[in-house]
């Protein structure tokens, strides 16, 4: 029997892997993928919470509604984000964060 804790553990792992990727990797595309993983982690635990917090014997659909919004917004974010990354690549011929240093300190 898979319990709520198992789902939360997997979701926590996903979130941690995503966060570690954002902090450690230097390629913007990979960083962006890791960011999406963090959103998926949230989606997984939301669905798990709403499945295990039953209301009158049914899953709590408030949480699942939030999941749909997160998926939609994440898609919009990817569309805009990739466009920005492509524009940067055209100008600089690089997608490495270490090369992004035009701003003077």
């Amino acid at each position, binding site marked *: 029997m898979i319990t709520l804790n198992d789902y939360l553990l997997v979701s926590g792992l996903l979130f941690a892997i*995503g966060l570690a990727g954002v902090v450690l990797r230097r390629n913007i595309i990979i960083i962006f993928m890791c960011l999406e993983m963090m959103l998926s982690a949230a989606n997984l635990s939301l669905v798990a919470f709403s499945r295990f917090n039953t209301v009158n014997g049914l899953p709590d659909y408030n949480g699942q509604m939030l999941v749909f919004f997160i998926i939609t917004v994440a898609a919009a974010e990817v569309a805009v984000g990739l466009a920005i990354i492509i524009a940067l690549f055209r100008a600089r011929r690089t997608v490495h964060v270490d090369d992004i240093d035009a701003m003077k300190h």
Partner: protein
Amino acid sequence: MPVYSLEVAVVLLGLVLLMMEAFVAGKDKRFVAHTALLGLGAVLVGSFFVDRTPDASGFWSFYKADGLAMTYKAIALACTMLVIVLGLDYIPVLEKFTARVGGHGAWGEFFCLPVFICAGMMWMASASDLTSIFVSLELVTIAFYVMVTFMRRNVGSLEAGVKYLILGALSTGFLVYGFTWLFGVTGQTNLDVIAAKLNSGTVATVPAMFSFALILVALAFKIGAVPLQFWIPDVYQGAPTPITAYLSVGSKAAGFIVTTRILQVFLGSEALVHNCTAILLAVACATLLVGNLAAIPQTNFKRLLAYSSISHAGFLVLALAAGPAGAFGLAPGQIVAYYLAAYLIMTLLAFAVLVVINRTSGSDDLNAFNGLHQRSPFLAFALLVAVASLAGVPLTVGFVGKLLVFAAAVKASLWLPLGFAIIGAVAGFYYYLKVLRNMYWNAPAGGTLPAITLSGLTKATLLLLIAATVVLGVWWAPLFQLVRR
């Protein structure tokens, strides 16, 4: 008219503007900006005459129309209009950095997207459910990704956009994960119901604190507080100057109304209030310290304003952390609204001058202000009023905002954070007034520079903002009434 027709009107206005931009012939798209100004002005006037009583429909569990929401809607509309005026002054720079090879610049959308951002900020002001908070916040953030990157032939703008994108998406990840845990421990998405549930004593405190920490990190990104404040100087420097002003005022204000609402939930809970207040005070002190001390050595006026924006966020978080007592009969949320209204006036005044300097000299450095007094006494005076108010000189509107925050901190006996705030305010006097030396005493490097001419609209806007800074600094009642609505 029901109150949500304001947001509907703004979104429709945005769609109409996009269509006009695409299908009306002619290279000069200034009419888009003028239409946007007229439309937003009409909505701003209309916002004082809408019907705010909720009806029985389920919509009102996502949406709130209290006085605070109406104040922030007015702030969002006023800020968007002023940013569009700044944008009109900035067109020559946009033209240069959006042009195709051998072609014209494409800056028509520069005046359409802020209207959608405005709709998002107005929705944030009213959002009272995790779902509506998330969606409206993302509407604002995603549109800002585009606006920050708008000058796509300018490497600085592109890099600022990528930085904003990565950190914005990171804060979104923290926000939804925090929301997930808040939903997990309470089983609810409406803020009022969550507040009641957290206060009932049946909720596990550790996961609730975990969600508080995650949400606070995400909101710190929006309001520019520690620990997610480090994007601010770079993004502010790289973004088109009107958008920097918009980020600094509009985005921060919208972030603060959401912060106010979410903190009400956590600070209203007996079991959590102690730990949450301690965390908030630590954030406030760190933000005050980082913002003010890092501002001192800056030689670029745009970066200086960026650190100033961090330091103001510190004062505002301090006001929120000072507890429910407030000061001068204003609740903490109302003090923050007052401070932000004042901040809007003085910051946009400073940015309006910076836009003109940037357009005429192509630089944001403090050196670009050398001899400004000879080139345009009016501009120099406008900046004098703006920096005096930002520093908190008495008889300016910025002084009243700081006074309210200090009074709230004294009332709550927060002596250590108050010390940090005083250090911040004193440091502020030094780095804000530094620009005066450039304007009035330093001679420009290349001999005398030509005088600066201003358009009628810019002159009128500057006059309006100067008058507001001084008059509202002496006569406090109008802003008090606005935030007490």
